[in-house]
């Protein structure tokens, strides 16, 4: 084993990164293309960005997307946390297998099917109960909650399954009732997992297209829907600018959360070392 990286490893690394990020780099580069034709390089210019920010349709769609993503991520996090807790804690109850299978089914179900079935359900409900009258925020949010919840459930189930049960028992033992124990002991300790579950749900909701197409109505179109329809009408350089902005937002979020996590982990390690030193 040598310490030097072999040329093979370096080549693999470069190829791997190129494969993953090449398309994104192309997209970002072309967002600064002065030429109106997307495939022809016409020199550097940021001119599409101001155009984008003055486009009312884009701004509305972006706002809609954030509303849908935030609301559905929040509900999905509450429901997913509950489902994950039950699945991790209660090893035996009637219908556990069915529940576990069904709660995670949307992960493997083709989106086309999920979207279609939701559409049919909403239509049938509208006929029988008079609600929802038409497709819109309520239906698209409900649809997003169903599949986002699956992801949160998986995250939370794995967190709860490694949770030290004796912490809850200690709280009960010291006189805290079960609900209080959950609120003041369990929830604060799993909070990082809850936050990452929420972020996961948020991003998944944000970039969903297929299910949204089935379950959304006029007036609440999301960003992916807008991009999709724009691309069908002919590719416009503003799309590149829009995509670049979305990438920037997502990347900032990911990098910030990563920095925060490594910092707290480093601080924890340093504290442990300090404790060990003073004990010597």
């Amino acid at each position, binding site marked *: 084993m040598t310490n030097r990286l072999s040329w093979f490893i370096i080549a693999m690394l470069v190829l791997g990164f190129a494969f993953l990020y090449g398309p994104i780099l192309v997209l970002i580069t072309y967002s600064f293309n002065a030429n109106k034709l997307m495939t022809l390089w016409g020199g550097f210019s940021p001119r599409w960005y101001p155009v984008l920010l003055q486009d009312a349709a884009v701004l509305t769609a972006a706002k809609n997307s954030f509303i849908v993503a935030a609301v559905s991520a929040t509900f999905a996090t509450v429901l997913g946390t509950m489902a994950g807790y039950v699945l991790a804690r209660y090893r035996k109850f009637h219908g556990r297998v069915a529940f576990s299978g069904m709660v995670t089914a949307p992960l493997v179900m083709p989106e086309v099917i999920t979207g279609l079935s939701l559409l049919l359900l909403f239509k049938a409900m509208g006929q029988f109960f008079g609600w929802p009258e038409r497709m819109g925020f309520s239906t698209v949010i409900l649809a997003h909650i169903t599949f986002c919840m699956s992801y949160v459930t998986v995250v939370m189930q794995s967190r709860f399954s490694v949770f030290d049960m004796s912490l809850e028992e200690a709280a*009960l033992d010291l006189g805290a009732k079960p609900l209080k124990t959950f609120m003041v002991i369990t929830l*604060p300790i799993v909070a990082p997992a809850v936050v990452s579950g929420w972020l996961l749900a948020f991003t998944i909701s944000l970039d969903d297209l297929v299910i949204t197409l089935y379950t959304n109505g006029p007036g609440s179109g999301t960003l992916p829907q807008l991009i999709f329809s724009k691309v069908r009408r002919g590719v416009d350089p503003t799309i590149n600018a829009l995509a670049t902005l979305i990438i920037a937002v997502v990347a900032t979020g990911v990098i910030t959360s990563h920095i925060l996590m490594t910092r707290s982990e480093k601080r924890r390690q340093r504290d442990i070392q300090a404790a060990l030193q003073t004990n010597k």
Partner: protein
Amino acid sequence: MAAERAKAEPSTQIWNDPNAVPYIRIENVTKKFGDFVAVNNVSANIYRGELFALLGGSGCGKTTLLRMLAGFEQPTSGKIYIDGVDMADIPPYERPTNMMFQSYALFPHMTVEQNVAFGLKQDRMPVDQIKSRVDAILDMVQMRQFAHRKPHQLSGGQRQRVALARSLVKEPKLLLLDEPLGALDKKLREATQFEIMNIQDRLGITFIVVTHDQEEAMTLSTRIGVMNSGQIVQVGTPKEIYEYPNTKFVADFIGSVNLFEGHIIEDEPGHVLIDSAEAGTPIYIDHGISSAPGAKVWVAIRPEKMELSKANEGIGRNCAPGIVKGIAYMGNMSVYLIKLDSGKEVKVTMSNQRRAAEHAIDWDDKVYVSWHANSPVALLS
């Protein structure tokens, strides 16, 4: 140390008082997990102010019994009474017990102070009172200066003391300790053992300690309940358990022991005579055991209650010839491995009162292993 305490306060042997009312009563408690019987029809009486140790190997049911006392498990059958109250329908958060967990279970997101105050807060105690109680208990375990640290900023021994403080601060009727010293190194263990005993003396709280460490049980407790496969096989003071084990299991589990299989020849109120092919000598014990002649027995003799000599001083019993097969010099004493003429190997420990050279017992020497007539214990099972 336990023996010293008993000597100093002979009246504390409350369990020998037939009029004493037990503080904790465990009555025919059984716990099954599916088909597995974790605790099998256990009964025990524990008195106020005792430090009772449940001693046993892993999987003997001692932790399950402790968890039933705390209320984390419900007995499949049987009853538990604490201070006369049936605990059957009382959830953990309403029981007059507190537990110190094996893993300490300190809340990682709270400081030492918040951890200790947690239990008092649940009782809605006024803030200034909480503050003074927490400070007092942290002073007692010498953790006051670490009050604002989080658990991960503490060493193992410090965490252990915080866990102890947290379980003591509510002054429970019964304190349950699950392997309290398990994670500490030897020196810290010894210091903490005495600390726990001191605190117990001072606060007068009844303690039940679960442990697999016989030394810990011997040092800490007023009485020990030895557990094996879900049952308490013997209850007694550390001295009783060590000197008069009632089964082969207890004799073997507590300390080390030489066991000889044999048959009773004579059983009189004043003595027993046992023929043992394994010992290669008749065994004479100066107290009766009241059992039928010819019955199969096992004779247990502790290694330190045996003596080695090069000359045959025996009078035809309690003296077996053998060859020295090994010597382990341990400083304060030496352990000799002797192969008796019957083929059975026995361990004999001799304290090194004089310099080793004067002992002059060496490898492959022919020696005689002898013991006093009151040293062996005859066991029927």
